[in-house]
Every structure is written in C-alpha cells, then in structure tokens.
C-alpha cells in the first residue's frame, strides 16, 4: 500500500551484467564502509556476538550457583566471570547495539542521507570494537586461557581500594580501565555524531517537535552520554595514575578516599542506566503506535518526560551509596530525587497505555516484545521505588533483590526493546522479513525463562543472599530458589538461540519485504527495502509527525489536527 517508486534522473537503473563483487570485495566494503546503515549493522552484529559471550558467562555463573558449595568454578574464575559478564553486557552489548540502532535508523527517520560525520562514525565503531577486543584479550594475558588469565575480577564497579596495586596486583584492573577508556572515546564520538546529525541534518519541515520519538530519545541519550561516560573516563584515568604513577587519588593509606571513587563511578553509573533504557523507550514509542494503529498519545509530554528523566537522572547517583555512611540528610536527598525520577518514567508508561487505548492492536512479534517491555518496566520501576526508600535499601542493597531489579530493567526493558527493534527494522535493513513463527517461539520461551529467573531472584534477595558470592552454605536455605533461577537462565538461552537461528536464516530465506511491511508512518518506510545507499533520492519535505500517514490518509492528515 505504501510502495512508492521514485524515478531517479540519470541512468543508474541499468545494471552492468557480469560478475558481481567477490566475497573479498564484499567483506572489504564492510570493513572500509562509512555508510551509517552498514555501520549500524556492524554495531548490532558485534553486540549480538558479545550477547552470546556474556550470556555464556551468565550460564557458567548460574551453573556454579545452582547448588550450594559447588566446585564448578573456582572463586578466582567466578569473580572474573561475573565481572566480565557485567562489563560485557553494559559496554559491549548494551551501548553498541543501541548506538547501532541509532546509527541505522536516525538518518532514515529524519530524512538525511547519512550521519553528520561518516568517517568519525566509522572511527568510533572501530574504537569501540577495539576496546571490546582489548577487554577480552585479558583472558589470554597473564597465566593464559587455562588459568583464566588476567581478566578483570574486581566487579564491574571496581571499588577502590580493591583496585589499588596493593590489593589487585597483576593487570586485571588495567585491562578493565584501558578497554573502557578506549571504548568510551568511541561512544563519545558516536554521541557527538548523533547530536550533530539530529541538530543539523533534519529534512525540510521537520522541526524538533515533528521529529519521531526514537531520534528524540537518541538526542537526549547522546547528550546524556556526553556527561555520563566522561566521569568514568576521568575516574579511570585517576585509577591508572594511582596504579602506575604512584598517585593517591583513591589511596586510603595516604589520606585518599574510597568513597570518592564511589561518587565518581556512580555519577557515571546511574545516568548510564538511563542511557541504556531510554533508547528502548524510543523503540517502544515507534512500535506501539504502529501496531495499535494510533498516533502516540501526548507527544509533547513524552518529549518533556524524556528530557526530565535525563535531567533528574543525573541527580540520583548516591542511591547506590545509602550504606556507605553519608549523612542522613544526604541519604534523604537522594531518596527524594530517586522517587522524583520515577514520575516522568511512570508518565511514559501511562502514555503508552493510552496510545493502545481505543486502538486496534496487532500482536506481531515486535509488538509482543514492546508489550512485555511495558509490563516489565512497570515492575522494574516499582522495585526501584521500593529501593529508593533508603532504610529498605539498607537491607536490600548488594543483595539479589538489586540484581533482580536491574536485570528486570536491562533485560526486561532494554533487551526486549532490542529484540523488538531487530524484528521491526530487519526488513528495512535486509529487504526480508524474519519468521513470525520463530519470533513467537523466541518471545514466549524468553518471557517464561525471564520470569522464572528474575521473579524468583527477588525472593533470594529478601532471604538475605548477597551478590558477588561464588558460593553459599547449604544451611542458608537458598538452594532451591537458586536452582529455579538457573533453570530459567537456560530457558532464556534456548530462546536466544532460536532468535539467532531466525536472524541468520531470515537473511537468506526470509520472505521478501516491500518498502513498508508494517504499514507504518515514519520516513524510513518510504524508501525501498533494503534501503539504497543514498537513502532518499529526493530530500523529503514533511508537514507533520507522521508524513506517511498524511500521504496514506489525505482526507485526515495529521497536520490538520496536530503540530
């Protein structure tokens, strides 16, 4: 229905018959590409690879914890695995894949031909990729693979003074710091690129208040990333000064402070989780309207709420530090700010429900994942509110309740959003549809596994099980629940394998998709699938938030009723 064939002046429609590019030439074109679509796909593939690696680490952790006093992993290896699991999932999966989606979709959605700085784009990707490789090279350093090498083993938040030379001899901490500094510069480059693209390269008529919500959220996220990643870089530079130049930033023996590391880390760490979840909100804000057949409810409020989350979110960091002995006034302040940030977040949930209200909901796979995202984010937000009550956090901090909470956000919302986005934009990237049947298998298995694992995990926290422990005693009463948690993990693993199979198979045997398989309304669906290298033959001109709705419904265009 929305197929539009645009004729291009000139004669590029005749194709030279003859040998196409060789495999080597194809690979070479991917390595040297500066095309935002290819780079976006590279980011996604890179992240999906590390999703499997990080998932493997998680499975080893769950095997070890499935029963008490287990000897599947020795303590040193376990500590490396859970440190690497967290570091991998945040820096090598979450960040790359979300910035990868931004890379792919943002120029298409704002009617641009590429990102503002294509070569910076490529450079940023390769920097990020190198950072990840450096991090994993740590397994080979030191005593080599069998001895698990020098992989970081100081937890992903690497508190001082455990990371000082005195307590972490060897190079595990150095790999952690260096790999993330390098990757951080890559992220910074992409964030700058996204901001410049959105500010400077929107097509005619697309004011900021007519821009779709996914680019909006990527703009907010990129701005947030500028002031979020950089404190971590600063803190890690300070750590390296301590470890190599004899500095005393976090050296408690010389009067330094362990608490200041915590402040610096969490000033990064908390907004970082907003960097990880806001893009998922953007994805949901694109998919839910399309599959409810209604415009997003309250667009201005959604924009305002997103910006508020980013602003308020930089003021809540010390809710990770309620137990370190800050004054009661400080604790009260951070409890309040944490509760306050729940308000715009809740508003977004209401807006999504209101979007579906009165609509005609189609339960395709992308929509299933977004509905699950909504429900799970509701739960995650509520357990967040529980922990924002500082006295309750004095019990729950560093327990499995916290792990359950943040996995509810990061898997239940972010990963769900990622799956939804892949199913949704796969046709635009490859020209083929992913299998709906396999998609539904993936969805239901994953949901079951997810809830078996993470619902149960809340109770482990309530039962007093702390995090970061490689084993526990049999008389603690945690064994059965841990076994249940581990089983759920395996179910999720199977679901992800089904997804991987679906992804690869659909590349070659998926049904052909036209321009607009979902009957959607944003600019990327006006061009062929897969998108041609130049994106738009003619620069679009828009009059409303849903240019394709206006084209498909000339009797009832958005611009007559809405900004």
């Amino acid at each position: 229905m929305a197929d539009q064939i645009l004729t291009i002046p000139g004669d590029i429609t005749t194709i030279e018959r003859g040998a196409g590019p060789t495999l080597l030439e194809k690979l070479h074109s991917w390595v040297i590409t500066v095309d935002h679509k290819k780079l976006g796909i590279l980011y996604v593939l890179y992240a999906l690879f590390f999703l499997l690696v990080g998932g493997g680490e998680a499975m080893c952790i769950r095997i070890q914890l499935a029963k008490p006093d287990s000897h599947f992993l020795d303590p040193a290896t376990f500590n490396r695995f859970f440190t690497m699991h967290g570091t991998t999932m945040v820096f090598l999966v979450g960040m790359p894949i979300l910035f990868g989606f931004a890379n792919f979709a943002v120029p298409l959605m704002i009617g641009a031909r590429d990102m503002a700085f294509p070569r910076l784009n490529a450079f940023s990707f390769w920097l990020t990729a190198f950072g990840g490789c450096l991090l994993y090279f740590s397994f080979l350093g030191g005593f080599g693979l069998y001895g698990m090498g020098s992989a970081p083993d100081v937890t992903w938040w690497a508190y001082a003074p455990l990371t000082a030379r005195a307590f972490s001899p060897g190079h595990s901490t150095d790999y952690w710091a260096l790999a993330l500094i390098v990757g951080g510069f890559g992220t910074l480059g992409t964030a700058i690129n996204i901001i410049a693209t959105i500010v400077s390269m929107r097509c005619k008529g697309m004011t900021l208040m007519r821009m779709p919500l996914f680019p909006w959220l990527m703009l907010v996220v990129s701005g947030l990333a500028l002031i979020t990643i950089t404190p971590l870089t600063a803190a890690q530079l300070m750590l390296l000064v301590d470890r190599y130049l004899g500095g005393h930033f976090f050296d408690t023996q010389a009067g330094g402070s362990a608490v200041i590391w915590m402040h610096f880390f969490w000033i990064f760490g908390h907004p970082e989780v907003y960097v990880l979840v806001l893009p998922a909100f953007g994805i949901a804000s694109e998919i839910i309207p399309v599959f409810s057949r209604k415009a997003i409810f309250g667009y201005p409020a959604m924009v305002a709420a997103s910006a508020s989350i980013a602003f308020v979110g930089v003021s809540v960091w010390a809710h990770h530090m309620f137990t370190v002995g800050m004054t009661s006034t400080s604790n009260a302040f951070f409890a309040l700010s944490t509760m306050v940030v729940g308000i715009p977040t809740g508003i977004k949930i209401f807006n999504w429900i209101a979007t579906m209200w009165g609509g005609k909901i189609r339960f395709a796979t992308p929509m299933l994942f977004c509905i699950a995202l909504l429900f799970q984010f509701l739960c995650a937000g509520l357990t967040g509110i529980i922990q924002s009550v500082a006295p309750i956090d004095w019990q729950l901090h560093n327990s499995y309740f916290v792990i359950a909470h943040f996995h509810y956000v990061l898997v239940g919302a972010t990963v769900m959003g990622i799956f939804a986005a892949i199913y949704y934009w796969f046709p635009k990237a490859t020209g083929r549809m992913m299998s709906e049947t396999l998609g539904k298998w993936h969805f239901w298995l994953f949901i079951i596994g997810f809830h078996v694992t993470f619902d149960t995990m809340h109770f482990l926290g309530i039962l007093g099980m702390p995090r970061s422990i490689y084993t526990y005693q049999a008389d603690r009463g945690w064994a059965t629940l841990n076994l249940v948690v581990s089983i759920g993990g395996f179910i999720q693993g199977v679901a992800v394998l089904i997804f991987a199979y679906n992804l690869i198979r659909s590349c070659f045997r998926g049904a052909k998709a036209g321009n607009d398989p979902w009957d959607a309304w944003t600019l990327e669906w006006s061009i062929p699938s897969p998108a041609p290298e130049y994106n738009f033959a003619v620069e679009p001109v828009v009059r409303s938030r849903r240019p394709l709705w206006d084209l498909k419904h000339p009797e009832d265009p958005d611009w007559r009723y809405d900004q």
Partner: protein
Amino acid sequence: MSTYSLVQPPETDAWELPARGPVAMVSLIIGETAIFTIFVVAYLFYLGKSLTGPTPAQVLEIPWFNSICLLSSSLTIWRSEHAITAGRIAQFKAWWMATIALGTIFLAGTATEWRKLIYQDGLTVHSNLFGTTFYSLVGLHATHVVVGLVMLTLVMAIALTGKIQAEHAERIKVLALYWHFVDAVWVVVFTVVYILGR
C-alpha cells in the same frame, strides 16, 4: 479527544539548521567539561587533606605571565577568525602565528614551573595528595593545550601553502572554539589551584 486549531505549517523555504561543525565542537566541549569537572572536584575535595609534604601555599607561585599569555592567545585567535571571515588571509596567518607562539610560551612556562616544583620543592605525583591532584589537573589541561597546538600548527602549515581561503572560515572558527575552551578551562584551573587553593 483534543483537537488543535487548523494551522497551516509555516513556509519551509527558510529552512536553516545550525551548521554541524560548531554543533559537534560544542558537544565535544560539553563532554570535556565533564572530565575537567571531575578532576576539579577531586582537587577541591583533597585540599588540605594531604598527610605530608609540601602544601600549595609553600610551593605555588601564581603564574601571572603564563596566564596572560594564554588568555591573550584567545584574543589573537579571535582576531584571526575575524581576519579570515573578512578575507584578509595575510592577517589571518599573522594572528594565527601569534596564537601558536603564545600557546607555546604558556607550555614552556608550565614546564619551567614543574621543573622547579619537582627538583627544588620535591613535589611529585607520588609525594602527597596535593601532588597527585595538582599534576593531574594541570597536566590534563596542558595535554589539551598540546593537542590544540598540534591542530593549530597543522592549520598553519596548510595556510603557508596558500590553501586556506575565506570559504574555510567556518572550519577555522570550529577549531578556534576549541582553543577558547582550553583558555576558559585555564581560567577555572587557575582560580581553583592558585587562588582558592593557596
């Protein structure tokens, strides 16, 4: 259900968006500001907390000359921006050269100061908290000056081959923005380290 009044969208012929160069540089500056803020916070937090060793009051002399040089270089680079926008390439080159010279004098001054601190006063990164935070903060700034000077010198080299014309004014301005940022950071570092800290 709410309806908004029937408003025709404004004419989109005058569709002017900010140029991407300055937007990117401003974004970079915001990120760098965050890094510097963390180092400044660490410096302020650890003021007076050193257990041993030389204190700021004992060893720091206010680098008036250095600072005047660096801040003047903001003036000279602004003059050169002005010159190239107006198409006066020769003047642009002259002011640009002056900027590089002033920046280099600043670096030389910093090096001299550090020489004295290390060899005469025994202040090193290792000696105490003041040493760690001082060299880190001032060193981070100096690193940014070095990077800036490298870029400025590159541009100078290209300018000397005659390849820079008035149409490159926008790009020159983006680089100049970075240089202004470096100077602004120095104002903050100077105040925190040499005024407040002593």
